[in-house]
């Protein structure tokens, strides 16, 4: 989208992608009545992306002089022209639509949102409109002071920053406007660059029928004593005026989501806007029915995947953290699940997104079984930590057993590796299998198929399969896995979280591999013994050496168990 510098009849300078659309806002009726000679509306051409024009901020007289100082822009054929004349000269660029009427549906769906011009284009498609029509609707909101245009990548005091995800390490390339920058971090959501513009809504999301619905359906919710205690603390945090951040640190499989429901119900009853967010799509789809069950009278839009899709305002929004990047100062209360389910780099983008989506004065509750050290440190200092150490079934978390294996990185004669591990390796897995299906974690996608075949050859009678995130048959295999069709299932850490498999036992191959940190080890171990029917489970870490990560993981698990025991939450 290109922006033009416009001089209104009153001599004001404004930046606008649709000067024609703006006319009524800058032509006061009294102006005409004076009978004075009305100055024409003049537009500086050519149009330029907002990122390059907004920084040339100067009083009206010296704009051309300011442009003349710019490295690249100085060579542009700058020209002030009468809008009436340009209308014919630049058809479709400068001109707005005949209708300046707001489109109620579009205006509503833009509430609280932060969307790039391309996302607005997708929104237009979903409403069967032309992109210009939606851009112009957004521009009407900007003119009314209810929204704003910002460059998708904007110049700041030090360098440039992506306004969608906060990234400042950008890809630089030479454009006709000078140095251009494309953001590599939020690319999966569509392009963010200095050539693009973002619409930021300044209203809060529509809360329909607030007060008309009975919100407190959570009385049906059955919580364990451990959950109830934590839920009380969460409610206290949400109601208090002290901390703005808190962490719910829960044992794997302790049911942390439900712990948030009473606080969410209270906030909704106060007319606050509430967001549930998690980094991964499958977690969102797992939470959606539980949330809907707890709040049957509420409409709960679920935003996941990369699409900018239609957004119908709801009382409670459920979204992936990627989708959270498409909201601006929209929520009073955010529950952010699995805070640490992202690599560090992405979590910077996530944090920026969440900070941007939170209304000033709003509150965030982070939920995690394995909080990262930085978050722990920050929240210990400024926030509140709420613990939920025990599972529903009042049994301790299985503690991993460390089994020494030959050093992967050093074995030259690869054939001897397995023979060195055998027969102990096979019999340990067979012993695990006695208690339930074995989930066999490997460090890398590329080793899934290899291990699947090795294990098939060791256990010819077993039903064995493997899967990784991009496996096209992944969904089918996961269904079969939940059904208990496999004796052993080879997986990468994608299966770490959120997946509950009846009676699961866990083996981690090369647990000393650098891809496994203490948090992923705790998560993998946490797959075992989750259900009431099978509350115990075995966990084996195969590794050449006991790394710091392995030691920390075991310590964390022991700590949770100790905490639960002291609180009387274990049998």
């Amino acid at each position: 989208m290109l922006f033009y510098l416009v001089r209104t009849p009153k001599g004001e300078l404004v930046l606008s992608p649709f000067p024609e659309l703006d006319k009524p806002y800058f032509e006061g009726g009294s102006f005409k009545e004076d009978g004075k000679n009305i100055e024409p509306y003049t537009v500086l051409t050519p149009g330029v992306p907002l990122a390059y024009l907004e920084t040339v901020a100067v009083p009206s007289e010296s704009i051309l002089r300011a442009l003349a100082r710019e490295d690249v822009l100085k060579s542009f054929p700058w020209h002030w022209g009468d809008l009436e004349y340009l209308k014919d000269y630049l058809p479709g660029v400068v001109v707005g639509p005949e209708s300046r009427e707001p489109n109620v549906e579009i205006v509503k769906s833009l509430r609280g949102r932060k969307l790039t011009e391309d996302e607005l284009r997708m929104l237009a498609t979903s409403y069967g409109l032309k992109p210009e029509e939606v851009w112009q609707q957004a521009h009407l909101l900007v003119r009314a002071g209810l929204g704003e245009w910002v460059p998708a990548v904007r110049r700041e005091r030090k360098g440039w920053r992506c306004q969608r995800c906060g990234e400042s390490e950008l890809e630089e390339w030479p454009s006709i406007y000078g140095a251009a920058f494309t953001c590599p971090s939020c690319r999966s959501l569509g392009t963010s660059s200095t050539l693009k513009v973002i619409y930021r809504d300044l209203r809060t999301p529509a809360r329909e029928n607030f007060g008309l619905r009975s919100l407190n359906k959570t009385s049906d919710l059955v919580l364990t004593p451990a959950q109830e205690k934590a839920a009380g603390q969460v409610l206290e945090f949400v109601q208090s005026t002290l901390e703005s951040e808190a962490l719910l640190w829960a044992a794997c499989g302790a049911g942390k989501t439900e712990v948030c429901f009473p606080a969410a119900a209270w906030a909704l009853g106060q007319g606050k806007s509430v967001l549930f967010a998690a980094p991964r799509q499958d977690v969102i789809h797992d939470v959606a029915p539980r949330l809907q069950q707890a709040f049957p009278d509420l409409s709960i839009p679920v935003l996941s995947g990369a699409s900018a899709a239609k957004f119908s305002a709801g009382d409670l929004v459920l979204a992936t953290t990627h989708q959270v990047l498409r909201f601006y100062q929209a929520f009073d209360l955010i529950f952010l699940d699995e805070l640490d389910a992202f690599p560090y780099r992405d979590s910077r983008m996530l944090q920026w997104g969440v900070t941007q989506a939170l209304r000033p004065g709003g509150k965030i509750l982070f939920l995690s079984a394995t909080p990262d050290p930085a978050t722990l440190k920050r929240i210990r200092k400024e926030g509140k930590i709420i613990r939920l150490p025990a599972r529903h079934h009042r049994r301790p978390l299985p503690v991993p057993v460390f089994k020494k294996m030959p050093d992967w990185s050093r074995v030259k004669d690869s054939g001897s590796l397995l023979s060195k591990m055998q027969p102990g390796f096979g019999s340990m897995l067979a012993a695990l299998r006695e208690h339930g299906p074995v989930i066999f974690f490997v460090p890398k996608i590329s080793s899934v198929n290899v291990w699947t075949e090795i294990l098939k050859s060791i256990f010819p009678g077993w039903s064995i399969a493997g899967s990784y995130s991009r496996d096209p048959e992944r969904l089918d295999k996961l269904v079969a896995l939940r059904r208990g069709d496999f004796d052993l299932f080879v997986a990468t850490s994608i299966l770490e979280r959120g997946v509950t498999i009846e009676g699961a036992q866990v083996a981690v191959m090369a647990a000393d591999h650098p891809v496994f940190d203490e948090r992923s080890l705790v998560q993998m171990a946490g797959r075992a013994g989750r259900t009431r029917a099978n509350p115990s489970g075995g966990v084996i870490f195969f590794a050449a050496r006991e790394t710091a990560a392995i030691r920390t993981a075991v310590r964390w698990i022991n700590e949770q168990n100790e905490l639960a025991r002291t609180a009387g939450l274990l049998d």
Partner: protein
Amino acid sequence: MSKASIIINRTQELLRSLWYKGEEVCLLCGGQDGPICPTCIKEYFHPELARCQACGKLIARESTYCRDCLEHRGPQALTRVTAWGHYAGGWRDFIHRIKYQAQPRLVQKIAHLLAEWAVTQLPPPDSIVAVPMHPSRLAERGFNQAEMISSVLRWELGIPLLNGLERVLPTRSQAELSRQERLHNLTGAFKVRDQKNFSGHIIWLVDDVTTTGATLEACAQALRAVEVGEIYGLCLAAGIEKNLVSAGD
């Protein structure tokens, strides 16, 4: 193969995949052995196929011209066109990332391979000319991909760029039009400034993609008008002869 040797081979593979680091990833599929892996080379660049000696389309090895060109529907003003890969799948996605996702730097990553290939296909030119883009589209995108490609070829091969071919009429997007309309849509869309620079030159006329060849042809007509010697079209991608599609895809 015995069970034991399967295990040994598998284990070796496993060790490689576990510990071998620092490999460049494939720009097209994200797998190993980049910048373009052997699988993608096979899938999109078809070393086993020839290129139509008129329009550059991918054709059977034993053919010289594609069917369109045999029926005189090929380029007239161009000496010949050649295209590197088949405009499909991962290669099309890659070109789209360059053009529509503001990643022109990607061109640099394939520069060496492209240059290596180009010199085996075309005679050395005096200069390289990029197909120009209409100003309004250039204003939105911020760069001309044909210029980006030309400039990496210049760095790789040391062949000078020649400016002066310009787009003068706004044209409707070629994608919206039928073949006949496409050809008509472009007539007179290009002109040459400073014609003495061009006269007698052997030129590589560079664009990202050729589908109907209409854009290249319209540029070539403008270049012929100023007595350019030879005009060789060079593109990253083109279509594939119809009866080859099943074999090619």
